[in-house]
């Protein structure tokens, strides 16, 4: 909008006020909800005479989130983690009640193992592991001088945490809930509309190659985001849970369709570059009906259903066109190119139809039957990275234990506790040093606020109502900070520090010396966690881990080449997307590393998918023994190439491919297999792909692959 036409449209003061208020309402609604949960929990805990109402209140702070589904998901995993952790703490104390060295070793190991487990899973499941780790410490450490109390300690801890979780869940579900379901629905609608629009434009030839690759990046991110939201939404909404299977299938088909689109597009590009204009143009002509079919206005509600008959019509049109277009091919080689492309177009049309069908089933107000096909979104986990996390956490705990034993510091338990909590909580974040730093700053201010509140305000107050009145203003600052994205981490630290040191209970005791001793110990614990993160750098985001991830990505081709076929399709696509999403999140956009990564991913996607289809087709038909052997040798050689790319393996794969193709060429019954092999060969011979640097006539020191 230019400056001139702003004048008449200047919003009145009232509108500005309303807009501001609407924005602020969300923040303050969050603050009010969190405060409500906080004090209801506190009141109940004091009424039930739990020894540490502060713990229950702290729980509400930790699970606080704007979105109901997030609160419920986090609560669910927190409850599981606490149960397991309380049991583990109880066991550790029961095993080594008199042996401080063994006791501390066992505890360190347990916490380390749980932190490692958390690093394996990056969503809320990680949280259950974290909790299992530090709950054991929380249960065991305070009773170290009095082991017989451990059972009570575990039971109290469990009661307090469960109380906090129940109240948080009820409040966030009842009082002005904000549902992820709506976000997810909006995201899926947008994803669908974007994708259909994109396919339509590609089919019309309106999109440049670089844009297609960028779009592919975006699709991958979308697929992972949808999966993340789906795993939280099932806690919030029973309807959404019933649709969960369809959601998975929808996402799965989305991934498959976008991969095939990529392959098809690359194929046509390659044909054009090699001067096979006739075949390329015929293929473009072949899929044109799809563009017409998709050129329908997509609106909210029932839009997907509109597309189904049109797509069906387009499939028929494609079938009819195929014969005439094929007749126009002059040479046998063009014929082969055309057949290969036509097989891909058919596959793409079928997958697109299946995708739209699932979308229309999801959009329908009532769902019929089950999703039919059961799919899982599998993720790719790095065990070495998790091992490093485990080592770091266990080491931190070990060093602190040693310090505690040697110095015989009375507040050592507090230090250990805080170090455990923070080392666990931040183990799975991308940049833990920064997290610890932000949180520590908030924590420090929280302690200061708690000091003011505890020694200047609360002594003048009496009764629960006045406790609320006296502490709410201090707490509100932290809650408001949590609601703003910039200060969210510091806000969590502030609230934790405040609640932890305030330690509200039925009979408050005001002991300045104890307060500062304990505070000092807690700050030392925080510092220890921060130091550990700085000294044993986190694997996530480092060059080393990225290289490992790239290797794992390449090994996906081996998976496609040799894993058992049932369910492999979903497994291959979801692991690929997850890995790709991880790598993308950890590289700078547009950097050299990112470009080479995208190139590798596309190549792995394409070749892996084709290998899968090839194996599928092979499994369904009788083959002469020597042909089967030749094709299997070729599949193996290609997997070998991706595992260990260099000139020798490249040559080997290319020769095996040529041999297999020569064997079945001219045999009409083998034409589907030949088409797959042809796609593979074109991919291998593409001088713009990542494999180009391994071709013999080029020195292998230059090219994209080197940048990895």
């Amino acid at each position, binding site marked *: 909008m230019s400056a001139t036409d702003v004048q008449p449209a200047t919003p009145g003061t009232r509108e500005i006020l309303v807009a501001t208020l609407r924005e602020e309402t969300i923040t303050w609604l969050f603050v009010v909800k969190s405060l409500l949960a906080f004090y209801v929990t506190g009141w109940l805990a004091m009424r039930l005479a739990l020894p540490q109402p502060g713990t229950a209140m702290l729980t509400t702070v930790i699970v606080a989130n704007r979105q109901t589904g997030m609160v419920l998901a986090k609560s669910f995993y927190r409850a599981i983690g606490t149960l397991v952790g309380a049991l583990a703490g109880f066991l550790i104390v029961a095993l080594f009640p008199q042996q401080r060295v063994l006791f501390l070793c066992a505890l360190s190991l347990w916490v380390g193992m749980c932190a490692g487990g958390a690093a394996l899973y990056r969503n809320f499941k990680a949280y259950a592991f974290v909790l299992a780790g530090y709950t054991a410490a929380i249960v065991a450490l305070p009773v170290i001088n009095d082991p017989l109390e451990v059972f009570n300690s575990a*039971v109290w801890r469990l009661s307090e945490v*469960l109380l906090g979780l*129940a109240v948080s869940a009820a409040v966030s*579900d*009842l009082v002005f809930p904000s549902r992820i379901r709506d976000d997810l629905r909006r995201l899926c609608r947008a994803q669908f509309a974007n994708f259909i629009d994109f396919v339509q434009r590609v089919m019309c030839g309106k999109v440049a190659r670089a844009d297609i690759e960028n779009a592919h990046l975006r699709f991958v991110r979308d697929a992972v985001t949808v999966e993340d939201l789906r795993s939280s939404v099932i806690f919030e*909404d*029973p*309807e959404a*849970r*019933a649709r969960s299977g369809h959601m998975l299938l929808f996402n799965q088909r989305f991934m498959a369709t976008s991969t095939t689109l990529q392959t098809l597009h690359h194929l046509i590009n390659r044909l054009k570059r090699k001067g096979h204009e006739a075949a390329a143009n015929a293929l473009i002509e072949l899929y044109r009906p799809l563009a017409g079919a998709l050129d329908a206005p997509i609106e909210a509600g029932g839009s997907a259903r509109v597309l189904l008959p049109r797509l069906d019509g387009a499939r028929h049109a494609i079938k009819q066109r195929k014969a005439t277009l094929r007749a126009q091919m002059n040479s046998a080689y063009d014929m082969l190119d055309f057949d290969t492309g036509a097989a891909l177009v058919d596959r793409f049309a079928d997958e697109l139809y299946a995708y739209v069908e699932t979308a229309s089933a999801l959009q329908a107000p009532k769902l019929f039957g089950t999703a039919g096909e059961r799919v899982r979104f599998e993720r790719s986990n790095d065990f070495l990275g998790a091992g490093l996390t485990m080592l770091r956490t266990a080491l931190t705990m070990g060093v602190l234990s040693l310090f505690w034993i040697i110095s015989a510091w009375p507040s050592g338990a507090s230090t250990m506790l805080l170090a455990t909590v923070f080392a666990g909580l931040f183990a799975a974040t991308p940049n833990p040093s920064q997290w610890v730093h932000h949180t520590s700053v908030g924590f420090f201010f929280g302690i200061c606020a708690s000091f003011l509140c505890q020694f200047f305000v609360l002594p003048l107050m009496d009764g629960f109502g006045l406790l609320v009145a006296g502490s709410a203003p201090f707490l509100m600052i932290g809650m408001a900070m949590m609601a703003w994205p910039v200060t969210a981490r510091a806000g969590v630290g502030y609230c934790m520090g405040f609640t932890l040191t305030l330690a509200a209970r039925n009979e408050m005791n005001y002991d300045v010396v104890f307060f500062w001793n304990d505070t000092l110990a807690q700050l030392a614990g925080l510092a220890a966690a921060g130091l550990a993160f700085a000294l044993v750098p986190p694997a996530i985001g480092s060059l080393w881990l990225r290289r490992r991830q790239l290797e794992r990505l390449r090994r996906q081709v081996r998976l496609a080449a040799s894993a058992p076929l049932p369910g492999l399709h979903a497994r291959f696509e979801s692991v690929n997307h997850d890995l790709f999403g991880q790598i993308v999140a950890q590289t700078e956009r547009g950097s050299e590393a990112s470009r080479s990564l995208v190139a590798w991913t596309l190549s792995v996607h394409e070749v892996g998918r084709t290998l899968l289809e090839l194996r599928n087709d092979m499994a369904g038909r009788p083959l002469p023994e020597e042909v089967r052997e030749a094709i299997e040798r070729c599949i193996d050689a290609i997997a070998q190439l991706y595992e260990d790319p260099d000139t020798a393996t490249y040559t080997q794969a290319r020769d095996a491919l040529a041999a297999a193709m020569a064997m079945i060429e001219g045999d009409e019954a083998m034409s589907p297999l030949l088409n797959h092999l042809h796609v593979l060969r074109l991919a291998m011979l593409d001088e713009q792909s990542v494999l180009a640097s391994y071709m013999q006539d080029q020195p292998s020191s230059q090219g994209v692959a080197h940048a990895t």
Partner: protein
Amino acid sequence: MPREIAIGGALVPGLLLWFLLAVALLLLFDWVVGRYGLYRYVWHPALLRLAFFVCIFGGLAWLTL
């Protein structure tokens, strides 16, 4: 409701056990209702869940007088 229940000689607060049982029943109820789409006939599902939970929790405590 017994204040404490002895499990293998260790005293566990009765409230905690009934709470856990009530939560388990709530999850089961939620799953069944969600599975058959019965929340469609309810004005405020979250309120229904809370009410159901309060009834079960209170009923369990009352029944084991």
